[in-house]
């Protein structure tokens, strides 16, 4: 098994030729060739894909890993005595090990596969929340959370009588750390905070948040959906208790993601969903539960998705997350400067610590109209409230246009975005007399 794991890793690295180039600044145009979809024309034009916050594109190695699983390795896991089932189980568990490596968790059994970030947060709210929250307990969130880190807690509060406390944000889109500290108290059970805001790009000071939260005995969940593909994450260094992310935002397939949870916390958590694979024994009188992480993986999981996520992690780690972070930061600085030269454009989210997300509004043009006009130029962005309606309310706007970067984007993409914005302004402004 060790030998096959090593062979698999070697194959993963060999499949990413651009990634194995000498370390230095990465060359986005070379990496873009690893992504088949980026060479297809859209509306007869080169696709300028700047909607990576919604989902990233997939490299050939990921597409191939998922397809190869079905061609060569498909069987159900953790139950068959036959060779193929053992083989599929090995691949699935190797993928768990890759997630461990990505997050630098201490142990692979601290990783639970889920459908994505949303399901991971719902798992914590439904299992840990139901077991640990009672009337009057407090959950601290921030004003920049995605709906998926708000609604599960509202549901948990309805069931348990716990209450939500919300940390406000500044005009630049930074967490008000003083207000955060003021909200912490003896009733605080959990702080659930986004690592990188999907609507603003703000990077939150997670390690400091964890330190303060732990000081009052609260647990900390980090929504890492917009973080893991763009910077190296180390859950042990952060010190958080839970960390959630989605595979499809890290160059992997949809329908697979993971929850990291500290071992002793996970061990004490009751089951969330019941079914096959999560039990030790079942009788009509009483059932007993499997150990974590199996206890939280009822039913046949997305095996092929997990294996392909493992391939995505290999791909990304072979390039190096520090190089990706550096590249995307450079691109963000460049795009920010270019955007600031456009009259009537206002950036939403100008925190000093930002990931590769450029959210903005343009005078006199609704974000939805911008989205349509940019699309006609082959530029794919997101327009709307980004599932973060409280953020839009905070800034008094119905929505924003958002360009979000990935490792395959470069200055040409930014130039195409800016040219399309100029055209939108020309259309709307030109009609003004």
């Amino acid at each position, binding site marked *: 098994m060790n030998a096959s794991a090593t062979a698999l890793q070697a194959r993963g690295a060999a499949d990413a030729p651009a990634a194995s180039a000498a370390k230095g600044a990465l060359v986005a145009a070379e990496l873009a060739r690893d992504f088949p979809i980026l060479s297809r024309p859209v509306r007869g034009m080169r696709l300028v894909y700047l909607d990576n916050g919604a989902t990233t594109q997939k490299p050939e190695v990921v597409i191939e890993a998922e397809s190869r699983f079905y061609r060569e390795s498909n069987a159900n896991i953790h139950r068959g005595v036959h060779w193929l089932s053992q083989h599929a189980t090995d691949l699935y568990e190797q993928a768990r090990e890759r997630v461990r490596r990505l997050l630098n968790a201490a142990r692979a059994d601290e990783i639970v596969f889920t459908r994505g970030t949303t399901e991971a947060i719902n798992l914590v709210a439904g299992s840990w929340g139901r077991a640990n929250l009672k009337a009057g307990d407090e959950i601290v969130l921030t004003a920049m959370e995605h709906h998926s880190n708000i609604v599960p807690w509202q549901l948990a509060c309805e069931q348990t009588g716990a209450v939500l406390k919300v940390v406000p944000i500044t005009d630049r889109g930074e967490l008000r750390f003083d207000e955060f500290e003021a909200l912490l108290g003896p009733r605080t059970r959990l702080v659930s905070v986004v690592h990188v805001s999907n609507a603003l790009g703000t990077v939150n000071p997670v390690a400091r948040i964890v330190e303060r939260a732990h000081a009052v005995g609260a647990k900390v969940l980090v929504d890492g959906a917009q973080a893991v593909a763009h910077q190296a994450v180390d859950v042990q260094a952060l010190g958080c208790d839970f960390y959630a992310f989605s595979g499809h935002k890290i160059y992997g397939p949809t329908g697979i993601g993971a929850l990291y949870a500290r071992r002793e916390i996970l061990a004490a958590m009751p089951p969330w969903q019941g079914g096959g694979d999560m039990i030790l024994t079942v009788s009509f009188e009483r059932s007993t539960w499997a150990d974590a992480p199996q206890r939280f993986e009822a039913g046949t999981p997305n095996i092929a998705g997990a294996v392909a996520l493992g391939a995505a992690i290999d791909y990304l780690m072979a390039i190096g997350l520090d190089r990706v972070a550096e590249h995307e930061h450079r691109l963000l600085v460049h795009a920010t400067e270019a955007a600031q030269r456009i009259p009537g454009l206002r950036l939403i989210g100008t925190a000093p610590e930002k990931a590769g997300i450029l959210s903005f509004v343009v005078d006199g043009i609704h974000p939805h*109209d911008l989205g*349509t*006009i940019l699309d006609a130029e082959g530029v794919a962005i997101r327009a709307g409230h980004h599932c973060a309606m409280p953020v839009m309310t905070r800034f008094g706007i119905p929505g924003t246009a958002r360009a979000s970067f990935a490792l395959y984007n470069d200055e040409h993409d930014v130039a195409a975005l800016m040219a399309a914005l100029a055209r939108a302004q020309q259309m709307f402004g030109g009609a003004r007399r």
Partner: protein
Amino acid sequence: MSLGHGDLRELYQEVIFDHNRSPRNFHRMDDADRVAEGHNPLCGDQLTLYVRLKDGVIDEASFVGHGCAISTASASLMTEAVKGRTVEEVEALFRDFHALLTGEPPEGRDFGKLEVLAGVREFPVRVKCATLAWHTLHNALTGEAAPAKTE
């Protein structure tokens, strides 16, 4: 399926820019007989629609709210187009208008100024922008209490 700049020009016609910039009947109506809320959850477009009826005929229609150019212009054009029509005529017009936007215009119907919204047919995701006001009007006329949604 390629989309040219011609299609974009057809979507964003001068009449649409005009109604977006200066929407007609854009005000509250304190003596309205019917009021309904419309909301497009995807893009956050929101409007409140007011209708005053006289003997089964729409005497006045007005709206307030915010939305994209297509949604605002469509609401504005609608308040003009429905004035003086019976409730039944308005419902029939909505059906035909929706068919126009989805590329199956009924034969022989004269849409008047509403015709400028036909360009939406090349942009399926924008159909709901152009129909939000109409769904809301439908709810106002049929007394549906829940806010109108386009999906």
